[in-house]
């Protein structure tokens, strides 16, 4: 009798190795509890609209019109859509022959890629080539495409920050490569340690690996740190010296909550450094409509921009993109709108500006409230969320808690997070899902719950944490 073809033991081993904690054990347990009627606050994923953030009005008006172009001919359309939204819908429909329902160019609609290039030029001060910008169904697809192109076998190593967003570790596992970790320094506000990174590379090479690429996430996820220009220069020089392609995940570039280190793109720094680096360092930069103040996760809109990749390589990447036919057209339009938003003087500008400002101002306040809230808790130390959407507090678990975790067959931070979930309904992701130094435990939560819910959430956490620490440590020495 033939073996069943899809028995567990016959699955692709690479698939089995994949871990993606963001929707792993904690999330599944939270979903179970929710089905049982418990109120859950999902802070496991950067999903702003799921926690009450409203979509910006203008892009939704434009896309609604693009979906139903027959509305444009209706004399009543002006009753519910402003003139600039109508004009913009016509602008995008003109760029998309066949409208939203046709496969576009596999790289994305040329007119929208041009808008992205213009955005990059305005942001950085250097010209950008639309031919080297590919739109994708979310930045994640772009990351996967690039890693798939780079990784040949298990000896190809990719430098990934620890802690990292586990898309990278998952993709590396799926494609059969090797993750080469470089540790961010928690005591130095999750700063980059270039010496340690160099050592990681040397150690990997000593094991026979070819280190091919370096991933940076700026602002960081889950850590939130914003890289300084000096940091980025250091990294670019490092990639130049070590012959690595730099993969710059810049999806949180609009989520900056301090003024000392504004966002500066890796590409800008690269060109500022001039030749030979500016002509030779290979760079791929990623962006999305899912984050920032747009938070349009469900649209799946993203892009990557290639710098200094040889034309033949670009051809191959184009070929792979063409197998997927095209990225979804509404998501492409969201990207066009994001990089080319209403301007002062446009009818929709005041509303757009006030909606955006409100969201960003609130995120900035919430970043501060959450950091301070965690720091006021017993045995919890939390670096400030300089950017992105997360808080990554360190939980100093007492030895008895760690033992209890072992007895329960769980990692200590998983144990803590499950107890937190069951006591408070707050669904987080244990730090082990992102990577951390041995024996140091964290959890990741988002700063996304509604601002008015924050006091209740932080006090609920504090209460749970106090009682957990009491249980496993005894009374605090006060």
């Amino acid at each position, binding site marked *: 009798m033939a073996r069943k073809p899809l028995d567990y033991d016959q699955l692709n081993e690479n698939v089995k190795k994949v871990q993606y904690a963001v929707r792993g054990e904690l999330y599944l347990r939270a979903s179970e509890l929710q089905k049982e009627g418990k109120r859950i606050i999902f802070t496991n994923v950067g999903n702003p609209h799921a926690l009450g953030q409203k979509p910006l009005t203008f892009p939704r008006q434009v896309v609604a019109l693009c979906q139903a172009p027959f509305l444009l001919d209706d004399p009543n359309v002006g009753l519910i859509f402003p003139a600039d939204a109508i004009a913009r819908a016509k602008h995008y429909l003109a760029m998309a022959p066949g409208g939203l329902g046709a496969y576009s160019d596999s790289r994305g609609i040329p007119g929208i890629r041009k808008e992205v290039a213009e955005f990059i030029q305005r942001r950085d001060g*250097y010209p950008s080539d639309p031919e080297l910008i590919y739109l994708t169904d979310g930045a994640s697809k772009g990351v996967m495409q690039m890693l798939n192109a780079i990784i040949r076998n298990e000896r190809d190593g990719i430098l990934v920050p620890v802690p990292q967003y586990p898309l990278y570790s998952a993709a590396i596992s799926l494609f059969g490569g090797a993750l080469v970790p470089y540790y961010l320094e928690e005591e130095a506000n999750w700063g980059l340690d270039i010496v340690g990174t160099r050592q990681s590379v040397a150690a990997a090479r000593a094991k026979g690996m070819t280190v091919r690429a370096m991933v940076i996430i700026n602002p960081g996820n889950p850590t939130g740190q914003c890289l300084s220009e000096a940091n980025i220069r250091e990294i670019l020089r490092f990639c130049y010296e070590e012959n690595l392609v730099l993969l710059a995940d810049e999806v949180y570039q609009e989520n900056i909550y301090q003024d000392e280190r504004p966002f500066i793109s890796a590409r800008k720094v690269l060109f500022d450094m001039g030749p030979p680096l500016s002509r030779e360092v290979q760079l791929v930069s990623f962006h999305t409509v899912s984050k920032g103040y747009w938070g349009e996760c469900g649209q799946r809109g993203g892009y990557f921009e290639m710098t200094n990749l040889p034309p033949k390589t670009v051809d191959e990447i184009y070929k792979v993109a063409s*197998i997927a036919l095209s990225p979804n057209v509404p998501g492409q339009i969201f990207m066009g709108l994001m990089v080319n938003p209403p301007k002062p003087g446009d009818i929709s500008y005041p509303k757009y500006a006030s909606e955006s400002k409100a969201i960003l101002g609130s995120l900035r306040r919430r970043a501060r409230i959450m950091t301070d809230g965690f720091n006021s808790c017993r045995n919890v130390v939390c670096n400030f969320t300089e950017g992105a959407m997360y808080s990554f507090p360190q939980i100093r678990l007492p030895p008895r808690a760690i033992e209890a975790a072992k007895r329960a067959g769980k990692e200590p931070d998983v144990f803590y997070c499950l107890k937190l979930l069951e006591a408070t309904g707050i669904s987080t992701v244990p730090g082990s899902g992102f990577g951390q130094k041995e024996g140091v435990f964290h959890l990741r939560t988002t700063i996304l719950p509604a601002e008015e819910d924050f006091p209740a959430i932080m006090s609920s956490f504090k209460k749970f944490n106090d009682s957990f620490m009491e249980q496993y440590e005894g009374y605090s020495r006060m």
Partner: protein
Amino acid sequence: MRRYAADKARRAVAASLRAASRSAGPSPAPAPHPRSPAPVAAMAAALARAMSTASVGTPAVSINTINPKVLKCEYAVRGEIVTHAQNLQQELQKNPESLPFDEILYCNIGNPQSLGQQPVTFFREVLSLCDHPVLLDKSETHALYSSDAIERAWQILDKIPGRATGAYSHSQGIKGLRDEIAAGIAARDGFHASGDNIFLTDGASPAVHMMMQLLISSEKDGILCPIPQYPLYSASIALHGGSLVPYFLDEETGWGLEVDELKKQLEEARSKGITVRALVVINPGNPTGQVLAEENQKKIVEFCKNEGLVLLADEVYQENIYVEDKQFHSFKKIARSMGYTDDDLPLVSFQSVSKGYYGECGKRGGYMEVTGFSPEVREQIYKVASVNLCSNISGQILASLVMNPPKAGDESFESFMAERDGILSSLARRAKALEEAFNSLEGITCNKAEGAMYLFPRLHLPQKAIGAAQAAGTAPDAYYAKHLLEATGILVVPGSGFGQVPGTWHFRCTILPQEDKIPAIISRFKEFHEKFMDEYRD
């Protein structure tokens, strides 16, 4: 010792670089041209690079260092001849008189709305409202949208937590929509379907990739694929490092699928040490258009059961059937009607919003229905889906509309049916007209397109033409297609892109240009073909 010294030197260089950048201070205002770095820094960079243990000289990512599986895979539907057509189009834009035609007719790809097919109004009304739910609170909305579209939008939004269409959903897709799709499947087949078995994806293609990823561990894992096939399958298998095990459809019998052929190819693969894991069946077929008969389908199901194969049923053209004597039967329905339950047969059925009468390619909506797998395997499928978080919400909504369209009694039902029937009957007429045209020509035989969106005529080329192609270094069908394009602007895909019996030549042509253009296309094609045959007459 040498490594220590090298490391020490490198650290010294790095330290000096840090010192140099610190003294340089923050970056000044953006300049339009890259400046030269300070000489010290440039020299230090060069020195550090020379001392690195990296393999210098070649760029990190070059044609020599990228994943060889990427190099190996191919996708002719958007391949070389398409690039050539796009270049010709650009020439036409610059210089309209430069070529013997005034437009490129893209018959290479199943992309109906790019050639003038209109979307289904009801679907677009609902999607538009879901994209901007604020509209539902305005009374003026009733002046612009039909009331059942408004009603359906409310129903859909109620299934989405917080009515947040901009949030990542469950990684399998919104539960309520999956349940609706399952109900649609059950209504279609007469057998129960569960929303828990549905995975909503950005089109059917990512779902196919997911399954290939799961099934293929090495080149020893083989997937049986029809020849000719839709080259997503060959590309996906190549990308995942597996082996394509071909089974030939029989052109003489209208592209018939014989189980004996399946058996033969299976055994041959096994004798070469390949573990055959799955059977891909495309029904209705692409590029071949045949619709399988029920008896045939039953034999295929038995074959998979006996040989322990996963059945991958690509059913994206299930609504494109143009002949009275054939009907679509899903493989799930066939399997259940034979008495096979969820425990008996691993079966994955793929559906898409891109085809049918809706043709919404650009939305990237689709799903796979996964039955017959153990819970551990299901977990792995879920895990892979979760890494991408979820598919686009608008596409998910559209998939639920396709599987649960307006019903008799709904306000939009009549106009919906008029649109639907109009499109489907036109497709049937175009399929017939093109098939007859191809068959009327010397040196071309063409099987009927019973379904899907393509014709796959066979070229019986004279030896002289084959010789000319070989001299030009191209396959004869590519040679023919190139000349067709350059003479008429009609773009088709050479049969070699899909696979064919060696020594036979075909091309795939869609039936999608608007009906009023078809006579002109046919006459231009005829003119070209007759000239070609005369020129290369032996």
